[in-house]
Each structure stands twice: as structure tokens, then as C-alpha cells.
């Protein structure tokens, strides 16, 4: 390891170095102290609190303290909610029975996984029921938990009745349970597929609350494309309805990506820069343009090729949906770390 010249005691004096020493001596004589550049200790200049630097640039807002279960919950809940809606509509419009059944299974799986994820994120999971002692319409978390409860009950009941009827034949009580469950999972599935957008939008985190008007629609599209993808992977790759819904969601996600990229606002920075920016772009590409292109090509392809393309579109959309939720949580962290935003101190212009 080589020692830098100035620390090694081997520096060769020259006119410049001697002139500097004289300058330091004069300054010391004149003022009794040195206040010139060159005598700053390591790490100088000292950090300062000011209207330009805030409070030493220490973030004002606290970062979200949710665990990795939360973006996963957003993903599962979004897909399950949308699947329940599609299953119910498919049922009422007399679509393929197998599609109805599979959509119900996805909803039911989500109905079991979602509360598990939500509860395991709690600091005190054993106190989950404390959320059910009140209903607070002004708290999206409270509204969401009750929506989840209604959805889980409905989706589980519909799937249970479906299973029992397939096994033991239809009976009146089972049909009542099935229909009530399907109706409940439709009614609660609609808000359940998008409320998580409201949940993070109604917060003090700038990147979230500044997008509150788009987040629920964005999340609904993301959940829809994931639900379509799951159903397609379960074999429903010849359904025109799913193709249409998948296309619609992909178009919306494409538009959402363009909306984010097209505007320049400091509160959108976490969606464009750094790790959260790359995650947002990756999630956006997998949710929007890629499945859109694959689906568009598949529409003009033969049956076999169409099925293969739709399988790829499905996988892309599912991955995109998951990455999109993770990206939004990451963006929330980055936004909370940005001390400038809540203090309204603009970035110094780089020129």
C-alpha cells in the first residue's frame, strides 16, 4: 500500500508551499486565529442546519415500517379480488363452468392467504382482533380490514359450496351458500381489489398521497391483469373474455407508465430514480407494453401459437403486478427519506 505523498514526510518544498506557510503565519498574527480554507479539519465544512439544508438533511418523515408481507398482500389481495369479480360475472353471464370454478378457487386461496399475510405483518399478531372492535370510515386501514373480512368469508363460502356440490351433488342449502358467497365476494371483491391504493394514498408520504387519485385505478388494473394471468395459466387460454380483460388492463398499465414518465414533479422522483425507479420501470414494462404486445400478436396467430403467447403474457403480467406493488412500497421509503419534499426546499439547480 502506498502512502500518499503529503502524509509520508517526503514532500519536496517549493515556492508555493512556502508562500502558503507565510500566509498562515500572517493570518494567525493578525487575527489570533485561522479562518482560511486549508485549516478545516477532516470532514469539513461542518454540517449546518439552515433553510437550504433543513435540519442537517435528516428526514422529517418516518419511513414505512411494514414488512415484506405488505406488498405481497397487495398483490394477492388485488388478484383475488379481481378473480372473485370475474368469477361472479362469468357465473351470471353463463360462461364456462370451469372458468367460474377456477376463478373461485383463486379468490378462495387469496381469501386465506391475505389475512395470513396481513396478520403476520402486525407487530402484535395475536392482537389482530383489536382491528375488529371498531369500524372507522375515516381510516382506510379499518375499511380495508372489514372489506377483507367480508371478502374472505364470501369467497371461502362460495368455494366451499362449489367443492361440496361437485362432490356430493347440488342441494338447496349448498346452492344458497354458493350464491350468497358469490354475491358477497363480488360486492367486497370490487373494493378489495383496489383499496390498497387508497390505503397508501391516504398517508403523509408525498409520492403516495400525490398519486392518490390514480393509485386505486392503477392497482385495480394490476390486480385484474394478475387474475387474468392466473386463470390463463390454469388453462383458460381460449377465453375471449379473459383476453379482452387482459388487454384492457395492459393498456391501462401502459398508460399509467407513460403518465409517470411523462410528468416531471419532484414527488414523482422515487418512481423514476434509484432502486425504486428501476423497480417501477421493470414492473411497468412487465405489466403494460410486454403483455399488450404479446396479446396483440396472439390475436392474429393460430390457435397453438396464440395459446403459447398468452401463456407468456400471463406470466409477464403476474410478475409485473407483483413487482409493481413492491416498487410502490420502495418508492414510499425513498419518498420518506427525501427531507426536501415536506420542508418544501427545492433541489439546488445543477449547472
Amino acid at each position: 500500500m502506498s502512502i500518499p505523498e503529503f502524509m509520508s514526510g517526503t514532500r519536496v518544498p517549493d515556492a508555493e508551499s512556502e508562500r502558503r506557510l507565510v500566509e498562515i503565519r500572517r493570518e494567525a498574527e493578525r487575527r489570533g486565529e485561522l479562518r482560511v480554507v486549508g485549516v478545516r479539519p477532516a470532514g469539513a465544512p461542518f454540517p449546518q442546519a439552515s433553510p437550504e439544508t433543513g435540519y442537517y438533511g435528516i428526514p422529517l418523515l418516518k419511513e414505512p415500517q411494514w414488512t415484506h408481507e405488505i406488498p405481497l398482500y397487495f398483490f394477492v389481495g388485488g388478484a383475488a379480488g379481481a378473480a372473485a369479480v370475474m368469477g361472479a360475472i362469468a357465473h351470471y353471464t353463463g360462461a364456462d363452468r370451469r372458468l367460474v370454478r377456477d376463478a373461485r378457487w383463486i379468490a378462495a386461496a387469496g381469501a386465506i392467504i391475505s389475512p395470513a399475510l396481513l396478520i403476520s405483518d402486525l407487530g402484535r399478531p395475536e392482537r389482530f382482533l383489536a382491528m375488529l372492535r371498531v369500524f372507522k370510515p375515516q381510516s382506510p386501514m379499518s375499511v380495508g380490514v372489514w372489506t377483507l373480512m367480508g371478502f374472505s368469508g364470501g369467497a371461502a363460502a362460495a368455494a366451499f359450496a362449489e367443492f361440496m356440490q361437485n362432490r356430493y351433488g347440488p342441494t338447496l342449502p349448498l346452492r344458497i351458500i354458493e350464491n350468497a358467497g358469490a354475491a358477497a365476494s363480488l360486492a367486497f371483491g370490487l373494493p378489495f381489489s383496489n383499496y390498497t391504493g387508497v390505503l397508501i394514498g391516504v398517508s403523509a408520504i408525498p409520492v403516495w398521497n400525490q398519486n392518490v387519485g390514480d393509485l386505486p385505478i392503477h392497482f385495480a388494473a394490476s390486480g385484474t391483469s394478475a387474475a387474468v394471468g392466473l386463470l390463463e395459466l390454469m388453462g383458460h387460454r381460449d377465453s375471449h373474455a379473459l383476453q379482452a380483460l387482459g388487454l384492457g388492463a395492459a393498456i391501462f398499465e401502459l398508460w399509467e407508465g407513460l403518465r409517470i414518465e411523462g410528468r416531471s414533479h419532484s414527488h414523482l422522483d422515487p418512481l423514476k430514480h434509484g432502486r425504486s425507479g428501476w423497480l417501477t420501470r421493470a414492473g411497468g414494462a412487465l405489466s403494460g407494453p410486454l403483455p399488450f404486445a404479446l396479446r396483440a400478436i396472439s390475436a392474429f396467430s393460430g390457435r397453438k401459437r396464440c395459446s403459447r403467447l398468452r401463456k407468456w403474457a400471463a406470466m409477464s403480467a403476474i410478475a409485473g403486478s407483483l413487482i409493481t406493488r413492491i416498487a410502490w412500497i420502495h418508492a414510499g421509503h425513498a419518498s420518506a427519506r427525501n427531507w426536501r419534499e415536506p420542508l418544501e426546499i427545492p433541489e439546488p439547480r445543477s449547472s
Partner: protein
Amino acid sequence: MSTTAFLTDSTLCIGCKACEVACKEWNGLSEDGFDWSGYSYDNTGAVGASTWRHVKFVEQAPEPGFGGNAAELNSWNFSSDVCKHCAEAGCLEACPTGAIVRTEFGGVFIQPDVCNGCAYCIVACPFGVVQKNRKDGRAFKCTFCYDRQKVGLQPACAQACPTESIKFGQLDELRQRAEDRVRELHGRGMKDVRLYNPLDTSVKGIHAFFVVRGDPRSYNLPPRPEVPTIYAKKGWQASAIAAGMLLGGSILAFLSDGNRKHRRLPR
């Protein structure tokens, strides 16, 4: 019961951190580690789960004539930060368990026996006050010494403050005192003194306000704190639109699906 408040006067604060110590001792809070932040004499940087009072050390470049400072001296201000106990509190609105309540003294209090650690209050606070204790799992912040107020005592920090920089009293009375104090200091030549109490935002004023010198932003006090519930209307409207789009889209997609009649699974 009438509403009580804190008035924290940074012009009287000597940065002794007696309030932090008194708060920790009374409330049995854990230590924060013996770290030095390098930001003046600050060691935690902000209030948090185990720091309910936090003394800020606002160190600035020498500014000749700053509030009567001699030209060579760094301007050095101290201010004891605390939960603002907002009139419209984001954490209280967000709490899904009802653990966060407004006490009879007007303070915002987290009932530790109800909180289940969902952490939603943390992203709902526009001042970054509430924090989850990772070991314990629950969210914590200043209780406004609810227990002490209940028996007629003032909060531990105010009790311990040696310069009366932290004043405790009735909200209306303290607000008046704060205004008088600002006027008095202005009269003495400290023209940069101001009262921080965001009455004109959706937070609608705070029950712990601050007399500070200079720009409140150098104290990490946001110019326009907003209670997140103001975003709820827009959010739920978008949610309704999203639900309508999913419902309408599904109906349209399945109704127009030509081959739906042919694929019935025999029961």
C-alpha cells in the same frame, strides 16, 4: 376537562437535555445507544419510539447581527421537539383499532394495551413522530404524560426543564403567552423570532407549539403539514371508478364472449 398544551421556547433552551432524561426516567424508556450523530450535539436526530422528547441543536454559519449575535459566533439554537398533539391528528384518524384516542386533556394518546402494531399511524403522521418499537412490535410516542396530568401534575419534561423553556398550561392561555413572548423578543431586537403553530393547514393547529428563531425549516418543522385524511375523498372516488371499470369491463367482456354458451361443464 380543559385542553392543555406545551409551549417550547427555543430562545430559553440551553440544550441540557434534562427533558429527554426526565421523559425517559418517568416513562421507563430504553436508551438510544451512545452514538454521536456528528450533527452538533444531537445524538438521535429525531423523536422516535424511545425518544419522546428530542433536543435539536441548530448550528448555523456565523451570521453577523443574527438576533444580536456577535459576528464571529456561530448561531447556535436549541429546541426541544416533541409530539405536536395535532388538533386534527393523522395518527388518530388512521388507527384501525381505536388504540389512539384523544384524552380529556386534548392530547393524542396511544393505548398500549390495544395497539396491535399495524404501523399505519407511522405513515399517517405529517411530523414523523410515531415509530414502531421493533422489539415490542407496537407504536410509541409522547403520551403528554397522561398519567401525570390525570393526577394534576405537569408532564415530566416541563417539570424538569431548568429554564422554563418548556412551559405547560392551558391551550388558550399558552397561545396568548407565546404571542406575547414573540412580541417581547421582537421588541428586544430579535426580529427573527416566530411562533410555529400551523393553524392555517388541515392540521388546524398543534397542542405543542414552538417559539423559534429563524426559518422553522432549519428545525425540521414543515411549513405545510397536512392531515392525510384530506386525500381520502379523492382516493375513494378513484376506488369507486376503479370498481366500476372492473365491473363494467368484466360484464362487457363476458357478455361479448361468443363461445360462452358452448362450454358448460356438466354438473
